[in-house]
């Protein structure tokens, strides 16, 4: 691993090593740009990971304190854990399942598509699907998305067999085992999956694409990467002209360090990214760095989600095999006749008994609860992921009353469900139950949202600086050498799992930053 000097001011500093930061770093390194990656968490690898849900959660999850408010049920069920994301090298790509649907054309233009929806802060993206398509292609090739670019499909596992047969019988036609960024056969120096069922827990074998196993090792080979684990960014510094100059971070000993930078890219996921900008308030930027619009932290989206379980009188063993290698696309269509804007996907999901017990019906106990558990082996599961409405007051703010281990105010995550979110969730729950009932479920169970894995929108892209935080390349409207490189950029959430789009945007952003370097002479 290369080590650059703290005073080297020609480097790009990337905060975060997940889908956005890890991909961006590799793409910059491949273009010859020296890049420092500050990762708050430790450098875990395959041998470190546990095939055990709670051990893995304790090892990987971002469990630094956070607070919640608002009417969403998570504020009741898991008030200090609004998000289920990772604090380790590779970020949440070490936890993600692997589903890689693209955004649809209309999902970049939700304001134009739906006009005005009461209570929602709809805005069109400043870019179109056509502009992003070449980068989607690159991202899918990079990630080895199944069914595409010559990659074979994953085989049907037990959970998928129930899901797909149910889909067929209710009349759905657009269902498959992907696209899914886990190898069905060896690809890109990574092995085929052994179907161990633990890809949420880091994926010991490395058959799943993550920045840990794919992007960062490639970046390291260029000699241009300086990856610093256990390095928690606490503030971005700027000069009198309002240009970012350095990042202050704590190292593993808790010592505050400074890395100078020519460009700073923030990719800390959509809670930590706005938190860092807000923590970087100064005389010149009193409301937070890059926040003249007041939009930093606003329009927080987390997808409309739910889980539906079907319990049968025969074994399913959903936990065997790839967790999310199953997707029904039919309900992702544009069709407001269903009573809501946006669409949703249904995707297979499996939990072990430890997590199933905590999430199937939070807070409940007694014979009804344990009857769910007794049928564990005979249970099939699906997750629902759909577009939620951006709302200005759904936002990440600093909670000055609660400090983390570094003495920094923690993020408060406020979220109220929009009536559109509720209508979609109820529709999706009914459809999910219908899928399982169509193949003979003796009982279906509807589970409320888990802590959010898809955190989006808190530094959104906008054509006009007044409407958002970053421009069409993810560059802050207010600070010309500050970029946002994660899902915080999303102007809308669409129905699709966000990782593919984060990766596509990171490739595109790297190309742009490299062009700027060349233009200005590096």
């Amino acid at each position, binding site marked *: 691993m290369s080590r650059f000097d703290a005073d080297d001011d020609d480097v790009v500093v990337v905060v975060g090593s997940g889908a956005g930061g890890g991909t961006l770093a590799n793409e910059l390194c491949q273009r010859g740009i020296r890049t420092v990656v500050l990762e708050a968490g430790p450098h875990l690898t395959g041998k470190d990971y*546990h*095939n*055990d*849900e*709670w051990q893995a959660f304790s090892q990987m999850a971002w469990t630094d304190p956070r607070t919640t408010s608002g009417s969403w049920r998570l504020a009741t069920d898991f008030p200090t854990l609004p998000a289920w994301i990772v604090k380790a090298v590779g970020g949440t790509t070490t936890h993600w399942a692997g589903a890689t649907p693209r955004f649809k054309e209309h999902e970049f233009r939700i304001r134009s598509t739906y006009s005005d929806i009461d209570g929602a802060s709809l805005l069109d993206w400043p870019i179109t699907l056509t502009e992003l398509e070449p980068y989607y292609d690159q991202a899918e090739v990079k990630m080895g998305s199944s*069914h595409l670019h010559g990659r074979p*499909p*994953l*085989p*049907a*596992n*037990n959970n*998928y*067999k*129930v899901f*797909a*047969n149910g889909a*067929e019988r209710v009349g759905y*036609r*657009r*269902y*498959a*085992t992907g696209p899914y960024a886990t190898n069905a056969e060896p690809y890109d120096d990574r092995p085929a*999956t*052994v*179907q*161990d*069922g*633990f890809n949420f827990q880091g994926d*010991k*074998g490395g058959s799943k694409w993550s920045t840990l196993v794919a992007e960062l090792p490639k970046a390291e080979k260029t000699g241009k990467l300086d990856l610093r684990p256990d390095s928690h960014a606490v503030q971005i510094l700027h000069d009198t002209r309002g240009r970012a100059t350095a990042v202050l971070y704590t190292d593993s000993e808790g010592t505050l360090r400074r890395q100078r930078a020519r460009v700073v890219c923030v990719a800390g996921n959509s809670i930590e990214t706005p938190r860092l900008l807000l923590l970087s308030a100064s005389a010149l930027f009193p409301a937070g760095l890059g926040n003249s619009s007041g939009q930093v932290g606003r329009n927080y989206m987390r997808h409309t989600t739910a889980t539906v379980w079907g319990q049968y009188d*025969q*074994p*399913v*063993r959903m*936990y*065997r*095999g790839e967790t999310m290698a199953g997707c029904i*696309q039919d309900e992702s269509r544009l069709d407001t006749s269903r009573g809501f804007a946006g669409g949703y996907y249904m995707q297979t999901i499996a939990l*072990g*008994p*430890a997590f*199933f*017990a*905590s999430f199937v019906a939070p*807070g409940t*106990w*007694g*014979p009804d*609860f*344990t009857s769910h*558990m*007794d049928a*564990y*082996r005979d249970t099939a599961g699906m997750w629902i992921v759909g577009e939620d409405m951006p709302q200005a007051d759904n936002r990440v703010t600093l909670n000055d009353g609660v400090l983390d281990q570094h003495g920094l105010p923690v993020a408060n995550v406020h979220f109220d469900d929009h009536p559109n979110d509720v209508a979609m969730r109820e529709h999706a729950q009914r459809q999910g139950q219908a899928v399982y009932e169509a*193949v003979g479920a003796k009982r279906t169970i509807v589970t409320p949202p888990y802590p959010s894995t898809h955190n989006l929108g808190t530094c959104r892209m906008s054509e006009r600086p007044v409407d958002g935080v970053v421009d069409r390349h993810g560059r802050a409207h207010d600070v010309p050498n500050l970029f946002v490189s994660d899902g915080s950029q999303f102007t809308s959430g669409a129905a699709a799992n966000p990782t593919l789009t984060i990766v596509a945007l990171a490739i595109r952003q790297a190309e742009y930053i490299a062009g700027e370097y060349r233009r200005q002479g590096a």
Partner: protein
Amino acid sequence: MTLLTDHDTVTLVRLLKMAYPHEAFPDGPYERTAQAVLAAVAGAPRQLAQLIQGLHDLDELREVPFAELDDDTALTVLRGIHEAAFFKNVRGVAVVALYDDHEVWDLLGYEGPSFDKGGYVDRGFNDLDWLPEPKISIEEASA
């Protein structure tokens, strides 16, 4: 843990069996879960105090001690105190500890870690045979 008596532990185990009743489960998982509860409150004086009071209260709600109540009555008693802080604390620990118990995994039909055994690729990831083999790709022509 001298503030809690053996009788309190008996009451706690009985509470866990009533809150999480599984006919197939022997005493072992419940006893281990009770120990997990006691370990969790050991470093939390407020929660320990609530547990001491709560277990004591349970014995006062009927003519006989909680541990001697029949199942239906015990469940009714628990429903009556389900908002009590101590009971919420106990459940918060128990729902994790009980279902993370490897004997419980066996009883529920879960096989635990699999990577070191080669995953399930040759051990039944696709052995469900009571439904037809579904298609795995979208046939665009028929879509």
